[in-house]
């Protein structure tokens, strides 16, 4: 057995020796000595060429047949349109039967109203109601069109001019719904690739605007300036000239009642070259000696804040919202603010009510003194109040410093 193997091996070796001793094997071609490895190389090249001519193996593509798609469609079971209804969902809110002023009627009983954001007590104001009646008789209720297509009345333009004059800015733009102001403004100025630093505690309208803008959003701890500074520090890089960067804060936070420290924010903004978008829905008409908002409260010139938005459904006791800033900021929104272009304009009587409310505020700054006195009264007592309105318990908790 072993000798047979040895014999075969020697025979193979003899053949190899013959190949290596063949006359061409010792030849010299172009000054290069060619030895027996020529045979091996030619064989290798022949094998390579053979493999290259073979077709490569691809697993066959088998698209789904019509029958298979039909089966999949039949098997698919969608989720129900709504999740199971819980007991909390069935609770109906109390229905009020009169104006939502400081006293209102629920189920025939007169109750004290701590739920409406009627900060200046303008609900039921005679001047406002008279100007609305005049407007209703002239224009009807709705404006029946977008601002771009004959939905602009003289009252809208007057309202924008009045608000701009009150805030000492070049111009302002009116939106038909309070919450739509902020979620139209943010996507108009912030696009993909821009950087936004926002407070954690901003309300739904702001969060929706941030989501729609598709920019990079970084949140900092609620009302914490150290956290804001460290976030801004992390985001500073050389590309500042090309990328737009914004800080988005609310002046008076709807969810927590805290006031943003605007002086620190402006200092940080100037140090790190960010722009500020300030949401003043609950502070317009409330903060500042004459109700001009957070900038007056801190004594900061209004030119330092790039964009201010506010809903008018709180202090001004009307509906709608506005945005104010430099001329460039306002003009840009006239074609790019989605809530302005793609929606019907504010009903003219509400624009009139806004003008009357701003006039009242400018003529009667003493109403703010009354408001502050009421706030400090409750703050002194520093209590958790429990109000029983039919079967609904309303908790009002006053906390946080207001001064």
């Amino acid at each position, binding site marked *: 057995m072993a000798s047979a193997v040895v014999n075969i091996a020697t025979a193979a070796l003899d053949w190899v020796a013959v190949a290596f001793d063949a006359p061409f094997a010792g030849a010299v071609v172009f000054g290069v000595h060619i030895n027996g490895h020529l045979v091996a190389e030619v064989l290798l090249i022949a094998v390579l060429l053979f493999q290259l001519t073979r077709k490569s193996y691809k697993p066959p593509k088998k698209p789904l047949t019509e029958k298979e798609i039909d089966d999949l469609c039949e098997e698919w079971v969608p989720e129900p349109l709504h999740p199971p209804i819980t007991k909390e969902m069935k609770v109906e809110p109390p229905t009020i039967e009169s104006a939502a002023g400081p006293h209102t009627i629920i189920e025939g009983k007169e109750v004290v109203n701590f739920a409406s954001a009627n900060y200046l007590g303008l609900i039921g104001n005679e001047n406002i109601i008279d100007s609305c009646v005049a407007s209703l008789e002239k224009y009807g209720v709705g404006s029946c069109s977008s601002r771009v*297509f004959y939905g602009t009345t003289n009252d809208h333009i007057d309202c924008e001019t009045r608000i701009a004059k009150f805030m000492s800015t070049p111009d302002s733009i009116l939106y038909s719904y309070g919450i739509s102001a902020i979620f139209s403004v943010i996507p108009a100025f912030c696009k993909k690739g821009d950087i936004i630093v926002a407070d954690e505690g901003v309300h739904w309208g702001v969060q929706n605007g941030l989501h729609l803008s598709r920019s990079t959003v970084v949140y900092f701890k609620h009302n914490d300036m150290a956290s804001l500074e460290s976030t801004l520090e992390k985001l500073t890089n050389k590309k500042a000239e090309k990328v737009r960067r914004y800080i988005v804060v609310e002046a008076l936070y709807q969810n927590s009642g805290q006031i943003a420290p605007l002086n620190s924010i402006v200092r940080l903004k100037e140090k790190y070259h960010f722009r500020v978008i300030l949401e003043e829905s609950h502070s317009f008409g409330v903060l500042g000696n004459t109700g001009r908002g957070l900038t007056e409260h801190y004594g900061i010139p209004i030119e330092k804040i790039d964009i201010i938005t506010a809903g008018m459904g709180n202090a001004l006791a009307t509906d709608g919202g506005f945005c104010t800033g430099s001329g460039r900021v306002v003009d840009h929104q006239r074609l790019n603010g989605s809530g302005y272009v793609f929606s019907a304009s504010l009903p003219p009587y509400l624009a009139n009510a806004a003008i009357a409310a701003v006039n009242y505020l400018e003529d009667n700054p003493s109403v703010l003194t009354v408001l502050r006195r009421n706030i400090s009264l409750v703050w002194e007592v520093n209590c958790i109040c429990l109000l029983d309105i039919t079967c609904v318990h309303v908790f009002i908790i006053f906390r946080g410093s207001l001064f």
Partner: protein
Amino acid sequence: MVRLPYSTALTTLFSYGLLFAFGQLRDLFRKIIDWFKSSSEDLKGYAPICLGLEDFYTRRLYLRIQDCFCRPIASAPDAWFDVVERYSEDSNKTLHRTSKTSKCLNLGSYNYLGFAAADEYCTPRVIESLKKYSPSTCSIRVDGGTTDLHTELEELVARFVGKPAAVTFGMGYATNSSIIPALIGKGGLIISDSLNHNSIVNGARGSGAAIRVFQHNNVAHLEKVLREQIAEGQPRTHRPWKKIIIIVEGIYSMEGELCPLAEVIAVCKKYKAYIYLDEAHSIGAVGKSGKGVCELLGVDPADVDIMMGTFTKSFGSCGGYIAASKEVVQYLKDTCPAHVYATSMSPPAVQQVISSLKVILGEDGSSRGSQKLAQIRENSNFFRCELKKMGFEVLGDNDSPIMPIMLYNPAKIPAFSRECLKQNVAVVMVAFPASPLLLARTRICISAAHSREDLLKGLEVISKVGDLVGIKYFPTEPPKHETKVYKVE
């Protein structure tokens, strides 16, 4: 279907190219001049708030024809209204109002049933509710913003539309953009018509669900997309979709076309998808008793899962509503952000809708409602028929009160608008970005408040201006009395 002749397409492209080239040239000069002037210290270190490309269209194209848009009015947007005259001292960059007004025929406002101006039934009740409830409730719906007017309105809307329950919101745009995220989220699929309104697009993006688009009004393509998507499942993981919602509109506002609702519902039922119908323009305007496309196309409202509409167009008010089954409405009242975080609808506006609904239903004791509905149908069909006879390219279906007339070339937009205004007819121009770049149009909205004489005047002016501007792309139909008489020799 828009049929764009080749010569028109070429001239339109050439015009836009020329405008673009001029715009770039002016931008170049502006850059050179700005380079010489030093930039102010305040803006050093900041990127410009509006990047050059973003508002190129605004600065170089839109500002030239700015006087055709945003025209202020000084009276109610009824059949005739007063348009304020404006002038400019710096070639249209800024416009100033004058105290002069001109009385014009209103072919632009959404005043389908004529409730825009003060109405004999509605306005006294609105003023009464204003004095009782004030212009605003200053509260969100769940915290003292629900008055008995709001409850009454929701019951009335549900009854009118034919659904078990309804919920109302203060703004139509906010209705769409906050309801869609409440109904569907990540893991769901939204299939929407390619020409859906911006509010639906925003709502769909805000929801986090995957979005697929099907060709406008093409039910075969919708079925194809549905089948593919159900078979493939979610992208990458191929898990089955959680739910699928198909979003269509009753009348598309830029085309005036109705949606093939019966076929779409048949497809939805077959593949177990939910359907969301946006009736912003069709509720109150079409259908024998004004109940919208469901009534017009003979579809049972119970087959449509969610019906959405607005009160701005046919009811002369503001706000939007959603009508669906009791459970869906209960769920939406609990989760929808526009209900839980936003100020409730203004009470006088609520009263206006209640009163106008009562007029339409005939519950005010008169037949004004059915008269208005018959009037708008007759007016729309007459106007559309006459325009087509004149040779204009008019889009839209019969019975729809919206009729866009195609212009195409950008220069025809201001020409048509200004010439019509000179002859006291106010029309609305639709250009980019509300419509595709090459397909600029003018959109006529007919109202029940228009009388036959108003329509004839409008037709006369449009015909004259159409000849002047050159937009009669189709051959005119010869009037019947001019048939040739052949002499028998």
